[in-house]
């Protein structure tokens, strides 16, 4: 935990520096007669982030925060595994959307999560993985008039059939 805290603070400090640098594209000073320039607000607030990171590091050095007093690992192996499987699943979910369309990605994600992480029966998995995307399709495309992303061209015929049904 101790190492983790300072690493995170360091990363966030780097990000603050990047934001400060990026803010300088617009004037960061106080323009006479006009008030602050376009970069003023983000620049000085990013500077505030940087200072806070400094204060966090100082507290860490003095051992003030609970994390800085603990020598436990951030997470045990089980924790890491869980996060990687679930978080990775989410990343894969979003990555799949442009390929197999939103609804396809939902179905795949549900199968992955329910069957392989949740260890539910195939029956329940398949029922949910078909019912939910179809339900959401009707909800969004027909009722709410919101088009969800469609996949690569091979998903198109499926959508065309569905549109013929709902419109």
């Amino acid at each position, binding site marked *: *935990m101790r190492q*983790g805290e300072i690493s*995170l603070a360091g990363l*966030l400090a780097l990000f603050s520096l990047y934001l400060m640098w*990026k*803010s300088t*594209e*617009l004037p960061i000073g106080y*323009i*006479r*007669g*006009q*008030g*602050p320039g*376009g*970069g003023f*607000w*983000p620049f000085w*607030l*990013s500077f*505030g*982030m940087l200072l*806070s*990171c400094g*204060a*966090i590091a100082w*507290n860490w050095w003095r051992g003030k*925060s*609970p*994390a800085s007093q603990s020598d436990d690992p*951030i*997470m045990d192996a*089980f*924790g890491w595994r869980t*996060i990687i499987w*679930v*978080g990775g699943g*989410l*990343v894969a*979910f*979003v990555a799949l*959307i*442009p390929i197999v369309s*939103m609804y396809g990605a*939902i179905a795949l*994600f*549900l199968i992955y*999560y*329910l069957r392989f*992480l*949740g*260890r539910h029966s195939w029956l329940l998995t398949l029922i949910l993985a078909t019912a*939910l995307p179809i339900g*959401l399709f009707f909800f969004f495309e027909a*009722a*709410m*008039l*919101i088009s*969800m*992303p469609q996949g690569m061209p091979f998903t198109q015929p499926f959508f065309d059939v569905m549109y013929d049904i709902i419109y």
Partner: protein
Amino acid sequence: MEVLSFLTDGVLLALAPTNLFLIVIGVTVGLFIGAMPGLGSVNGVAILLPITFLVPPGSAIIFLAAIYYGAMYGGAISSVALGIPGASTAVATTFDGRPLALQGRASLALVTAALASFVGGTVANVFFTLFAPILASLALSFGPPEIFALMLLAFATFVGLGGDDIPKTIFSICFGLVLATVGFDTISGEPRLVLFDIPGFLRGIGFIVLAIGVYGIGEMLWTIEQTRGEITTTNPKMTAKGMMSDTKEAVRRGWKGTWIGSLIGFFVGILPAAGATPGSLMSYGVAKMVSNTPQEFGNGSPNGVAAPEAANNSASTGSMLPMLTLGIPGSPTTAILLGGMVIWGLTPGPRLFVDESEFVWGLIGSFYISNIAALLINLAFIPLFIWMLRMPFTILAPLIFVLSIVGGFAASRSMHDLWLIVIFGIAAFFMRKFDYPLAPAVLAIVLGPIAEPTLRQSLLLSSGDPMIFFTRPIAGPITIIAIILILLPAIKLIRGSRRVEEA
């Protein structure tokens, strides 16, 4: 008492069988739309708009008011049951609603939210009926310096909200405020902070992206990791008797927050630039400040649910006021309603109350009826939402993830924002591990886009002289109160630490 007779006509119109039917349908539809993370009354009203061409205008208005109310009640459901604020107005509801749900008191939270919303909506309706014209001129007297002062006050009421770790809280606030500046600088008309020069950032980072990332993904990952993915949420029981006692408890422990929320919400809501979100945030802050048991807030206080819920309902009704009397939309929803009125051939503006009084009072009358219908229908559906919470966690979790992603897309319509949601979610998980409070960042991203432009507009007005915030008759007192409120905890802190050192 011309007003009362107009109002009676409006109410009677809403009570006609067909219209009552429309109200029931509208509220139910609105409730479910509002309960979807990412969707809110704006979506409900937008899809309804073309339909208003087909039904008689009286019924169209009623249907519309019903959807509006339903969606406002629905926002709390997502905050409590899923832990994701469905709309920016419901952020503060998660602060105490979610802990209550995790303690197995979801039904208490939902009942409190419903009752508070009802009171908030009713109070606002009464104010609206009695004082509309005076309030409209009050709204006009709020220029940029006044709005900025108000934002300062909103921040001030939130000083105490963060965790115990002050640098981390400050980091979180600044982080939210900086994220809010990404995209485009209205004042100079230049693109700004387009991170890594990815064009997707031109649209800025919306509140909903950060909120879904932090609450829908980050918080869920944290819960899964903490509980080792084994728990079902503490088994909430649902009986008729239980609900009765919840109602009693909600009244007993939530009335204070409800009143605070109803009043603050309405007055902040009528200001076109401010709207319902700052109203609900300030109410939460004030409720905590005046509470005898502030330590309960954030750990499941019914007052903490009641205040923001009463406020957002009250403010949403209040935000109709500038729309009707000035033709100025205070929120995206009212903007769409305004478009609808133009389509119907009405000219929103100061003459509307005089020229089209039947329309205006018909609308207000249907607010009263919709509010009652929304309360009853909402209470009737609570068992369903509770039942949802009883699903095994390994089913509920993927459903929440899926709803977060589709809801996120529905709100933003961009793949870029979906990636941001995932990135924020994973970042939020690690920050949460190290006790960074993230609620301040979420608040900041809501208030920042109002605070920064008004600050700069004010300074342009005064040619760069900051005294403008102190010398104007309305802005002055608000600014001073805000500064005192901000300094108070700091002074206490310094005194406190000095005492410790002395001892």
